[in-house]
């Protein structure tokens, strides 16, 4: 339980750091944001896998409990999981009320969409950070337990015997090693593409994004369906976090081109802040969802 609290606290702190990095003089520090994203990922893994009843994970029956066990399903689909086809992955999100649309991630629940947008805006600046975190997760293979991916990744550090070979992976991330060593593990590129295609709309050069204006779409969603926040509560408890985490793993390659959109995104993020607060507060009224409030509080800060 205390691990969960500490993990939650660390996630909040990390989000704050990524947000603050946007306004730092000299531009985004890639190294620091990468490290923060790694911490964020570790904390999230602990948070989601700590089998503690009574917290938000005890939401829609079955779905969240699948998190640790079923990499291919569940709301954490966007984080270090085998890559189902891009649209299918999103469609498996527990959002029965929302038929999958192109870029289903973005078209998710109103509240997650707004929070997603909020987080995305702030996290746009933490581009490689979160991306790296996600990638690191991929390298670790299946997301069974918090220690699992880490151990896998560490084990896959090229043993000394491999290092000296000229054909060694060299500067490639260890994810490549891991992927080769574990046939069942997902290839390094996969889940990240799904949210990337949706979020940010600014994937690496040359990759077509299904929605070229993802930033605008959530705003539309939130405006259209503010009242749906209450209805979507059930989905939101898991979907919110899942979407938020998916954003961490999504592409932030817009970092380097952020300038023309940077100002706009910040404004949108700030505007969306109060909107996100409302659904969050609505959630808080329900005892079961009370534990969501820290999340909403953290997101409100953006």
């Amino acid at each position: 339980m205390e691990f969960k609290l500490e993990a939650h606290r660390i996630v909040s702190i990390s989000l704050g750091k990524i947000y603050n990095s946007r306004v730092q003089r000299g531009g985004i520090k890639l190294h620091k944001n990468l490290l923060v994203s790694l911490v964020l990922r570790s904390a999230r893994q602990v948070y989601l896998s700590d089998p503690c009843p009574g917290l938000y994970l005890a939401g829609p029956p079955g779905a969240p409990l699948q998190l640790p066990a079923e990499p291919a399903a569940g709301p954490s689909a966007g984080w270090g999981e085998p890559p189902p086809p891009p649209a299918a992955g999103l469609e498996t999100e527990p959002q029965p009320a929302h038929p999958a649309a192109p870029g289903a991630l973005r078209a998710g629940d109103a509240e997650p969409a707004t929070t997603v947008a909020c987080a995305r805006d702030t996290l746009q600046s933490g581009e490689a950070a979160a991306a790296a975190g996600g990638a690191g997760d991929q390298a670790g293979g299946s997301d069974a337990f918090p220690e699992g991916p880490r151990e896998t990744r560490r084990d896959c550090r090229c043993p000394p015997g491999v290092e000296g070979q000229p054909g060694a992976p060299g500067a490639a991330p260890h994810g490549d090693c891991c992927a080769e060593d574990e046939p069942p593990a997902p290839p390094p590129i996969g889940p990240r593409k799904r949210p990337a295609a949706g979020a940010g709309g600014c994937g690496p050069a040359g990759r077509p994004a299904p929605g070229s204006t993802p930033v605008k779409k959530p705003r539309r969603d939130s405006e259209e369906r503010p009242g749906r926040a209450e209805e979507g509560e059930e989905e939101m408890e898991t979907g919110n976090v899942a979407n938020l985490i998916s954003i961490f793993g999504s592409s932030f390659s817009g970092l380097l081109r952020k300038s023309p959109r940077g100002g706009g995104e910040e404004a949108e993020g700030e505007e969306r802040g109060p909107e996100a607060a409302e659904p969050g507060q609505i959630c808080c009224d329900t005892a079961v969802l009370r534990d969501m409030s820290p999340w909403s509080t953290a997101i409100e800060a953006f």
Partner: protein
Amino acid sequence: MPSHRVPSEADVISTVEFNHTGELLATGDKGGRVVIFQREPESKNAPHSQGEYDVYSTFQSHEPEFDYLKSLEIEEKINKIKWLPQQNAAHSLLSTNDKTIKLWKITERDKRPEGYNLKDEEGKLKDLSTVTSLQVPVLKPMDLMVEVSPRRVFANGHTYHINSISVNSDCETYMSADDLRINLWHLAITDRSFNIVDIKPANMEDLTEVITASEFHPHHCNLFVYSSSKGSLRLCDMRAAALCDKHSKLFEEPEDPSNRSFFSEIISSVSDVKFSHSGRYMLTRDYLTVKVWDLNMEARPIETYQVHDYLRSKLCSLYENDCIFDKFECAWNGSDSVIMTGAYNNFFRMFDRNTKRDVTLEASRESSKPRAVLKPRRVCVGGKRRRDDISVDSLDFTRKILHTAWHPAENIIAVAAANNLYIFQDKVNSETH
């Protein structure tokens, strides 16, 4: 460093570097200025000032810039200074901020010509009718003037933030490294550079590590090393391929699973790497340790020294206050027998590799009165506490020694603490020769 202004953030020293003889010591600060100190020659007339460093020259190296394309401000902070080997009467150094490297030439002028025929003392043209005889101008001594001029500007080579520069032993080329790429430059050519390392993934989402430091081998002009945020070192041979993405050697220590925490990745990130003077070893600094690696053994370091292991239980707080991201440097002494690195509370640590003894010293105004002897400090972590010990909880994490340098030959060290530069000399040794 003497300053007549109220010290501000811009005065914080961001890099310290001795030149190859140790006669000059350069510091860069966050405001983009470079201050060079020169060691006074030892003289019998003034024994008290023998071997002390005085300000030699001050100049503005970098100014804040704005990248209009990306709407990013480029900080003027000097990240690194590296001296070029001296080839004539002038001294040259490279200084870099996040984006641009500059080559500066430092020359002395201590004579000036007098007795021109056509000009008078102020330089105005003389009335020719007053010139009745011709004279040969002569050079007369004048007060020493140190002139600094920018000779080269190496710009637009880096998309990410430059973290290191290193001059090759061939004295013709140097490399600059940012988070994802390393470029090779020729000192005389500014409009192009060769990319020799590129770890940027095709998909930035797959990014897992960045380059944190790099250095050329001191003797082999084809070898260089770069460190990563994952704690690994890669030795590369430029003869093997044009693009050195495949390392010749990978130095990496398996992680100790018992030390696993949320912050394991952060504390394993290497903040500095330095070849030994012999070229046989490398010294790395990560958040809690310094490690000595043998170039012939990739599996693990040959020596590991704990700098401040008592912080291991405080990593969460240090993460909150950003201290965990501090990048400490490390240094070898001239004979590669002692290594030094900074810590918090303005402490710095020295480890003797032969005797395995270590010492903690403090850089403070009290300790740096002339001819004062530095008193070893101790951090107590519970248990017996001696009188002058400092407890872990009373350490001042806002006072930190990130930048240190060791004279190439003598036991003289330069230690930067915020906007102050401390220079300590081991007088005992210097008196014996």
